C-alpha cells in the first residue's frame, strides 16, 4: 500500500513553472529515492509535498487523503516529516532544544522521551554535545541533528533531502548507515540524493526527475544499470 501518492504535481515560483506534472508513489515500509540533476525540481517537489509553496496544482495523497490544501504544520502532525536540504537547524538553540522542537506536535510530545533515547542511541555524538548550541556543531553533526530532529517528530514518512550534501565521504558513509538502520526499523523513507550509487544501493525503488518531470522509474537495482540514469544524472 502506498503511504504517499503524488499525482500530476505542478508547482510554480512566482509565475515560473518548475514542476510539470510529477507522479510517484512511496510504498509503506520502503525506501524510495528520487534522483536527478541540479535544478531538476527535486527540492521543489519536496517543498510542494510539505506545503511550503504558494502555488501548487495536482494531488498529494497521504494515507489515502488529499493533503494538498493543508498548512505545513498539519501535514507534520499527520506524520509527514522532511529533513530539509542544507539541514536548517536552529543555530541558537541547543542540541537538546533542537530535538525537542522536533517533537513539537502533540502526538510527538508523548513519545518525546522514548524518541530522544532512540536518537542518542543512533547518534551518540549528539548526546556528548547535548547542551551545545547547534550552530557550533560541525557539518556532519548538524546533519545528524537534522535527521535526529526528524525522528523526534514520530514520522510515518521521513523525507531526506540531500543528506550527504557537503559532507566528507567518511561521514557520507555513516549517514547512509543510519538511513539503512532506519529502514530496517521499519520507517518509510523518501530519499533525494545526488550520490547516485549510494542512493540506489540502499533504496528499494527509484525515480529519475529531470526538468520537472519524472523521466524514468524502476527497481533500484535495475536503475543502477540503466544508461538513462547516467544520462540524466551525469549527462554522459
Amino acid at each position, binding site marked *: 500500500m502506498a503511504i504517499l501518492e503524488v499525482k500530476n504535481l505542478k508547482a510554480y515560483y512566482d509565475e*515560473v513553472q518548475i514542476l510539470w506534472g510529477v507522479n510517484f508513489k512511496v510504498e509503506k515500509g520502503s525506501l524510495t529515492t528520487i534522483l536527478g540533476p541540479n535544478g531538476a525540481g527535486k527540492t521543489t517537489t519536496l517543498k510542494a509535498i510539505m506545503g511550503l509553496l504558494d502555488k501548487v496544482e495536482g494531488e498529494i495523497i497521504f494515507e489515502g487523503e488529499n493533503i494538498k490544501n493543508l498548512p505545513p504544520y498539519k501535514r507534520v502532525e499527520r506524520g509527514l516529516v522532511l529533513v530539509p536540504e542544507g539541514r536548517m537547524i536552529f543555530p541558537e538553540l541547543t542540541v537538546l532544544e533542537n530535538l525537542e522542537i522536533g517533537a513539537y506536535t502533540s502526538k510527538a510530545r508523548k513519545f518525546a522521551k522514548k524518541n530522544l533515547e532512540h536518537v542518542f542511541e543512533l547518534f551518540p555524538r549528539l548526546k556528548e554535545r547535548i547542551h551545545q548550541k547547534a550552530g557550533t556543531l560541525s557539518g556532519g553533526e548538524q546533519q545528524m541533528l537534522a535527521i535526529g530532529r526528524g525522528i523526534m517528530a514520530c514520522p510515518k514518512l521521513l523525507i531526506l533531502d540531500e543528506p550527504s550534501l557537503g559532507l566528507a*565521504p567518511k561521514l557520507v558513509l555513516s549517514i547512509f548507515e543510519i538511513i539503512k538502520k532506519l529502514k530496517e526499523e521499519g520507517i518509510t523513507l523518501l530519499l533525494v540524493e545526488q550520490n547516485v*550509487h*549510494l542512493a540506489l544501493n540502499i533504496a528499494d525503488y527509484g525515480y529519475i526527475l529531470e526538468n520537472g518531470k519524472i523521466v524514468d522509474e524502476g527497481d533500484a537495482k535495475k536503475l543502477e544499470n540503466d544508461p538513462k540514469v547516467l544520462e540524466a544524472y*551525469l549527462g554522459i
Partner: protein
Amino acid sequence: MENILQVKNLSKKFGGLIALNNVSFEVKKQEILGIIGPNGAGKSTLFKCITSIYKPSSGKVYFEGKDITYLPTYKKVKLGMAITHQIVKPLKELSVLENVMVGACYGKANLSLKEAKEKALEILDFLGLYDKKDLEAGKLNVPQKKRLEMARALAGKPDLIFLDEVLAGLNPAEVSKMLEVILKIREKGITILMIEHLMHAIMKISDRIIVLDHGQKIAEGTPKEIAKNEKVIEAYLGDPKFALKLVKH
C-alpha cells in the same frame, strides 16, 4: 601562453572553518578553465575571494601581472573581470535591457548610457534574449535568468569572465546551446573560468580542469587526466566501493 590570472596560496577561514586552504593555480589567456568538486568544496568561495566579494584570509591574486588581491570588487570589474552568480541575482524590477546596460555602463567598457543601450541590445541578440528586452528581469524563467547573468557580464567587455554554474538547471538542448555561446565568447578573446557540475559538459568544453575538495586543490589537468584520477572519482563522483561496503555490511 601568457597568464591572465594567477592565484597564489589563497585561503579563507570563516570562524574556525577553513573554506579554502592554500589554493594556487594559473589561468592562461583565452583558455577555458573548469573548476569542479562536490558541494561545499569551496568552489564558489574561491570565486568570491578572487573577486573580493569575500576578503581572503591569506594569499595573493594577480591579474595581468598586477597584485589585485585587495582591490574592491567594482575596481576588479573595471579592470576587466566579469562575474556571474550561482544563485542568479537579476535586478528584479529593472527591465532585461536595463540589467544588461548596467553591465555595459560600469564594466571595463565604461560606456555612456546611449552606447550602453546599443551594446546591450547587441548582446541580448547574441544570447537570444532580444524579444525579452522590455520584460522585468524578475519575470524571466531560470534558464533566461542564467543567460541574463551572462549577458550582463559580457556587456562590460571583460577580459576574464567567471561563470558559476551557468549550466545548472538547463535541459540538454539548452546546455549545448549555452556551450556554443561559451565557445563563441572565447573566440572573442575572453578567458573563461567556470564552475560546473555537469560532467560531460565541462569535460567537453574545458581546456584544463581544477578539482577542489574540502577547500583544497586535489587535482589539476586536462579533462582526460581528470576523468581517470582516482581521487576525483572518490571525492566527487561517489566511490562505488563505498556503496559495495554498505551492501555487505
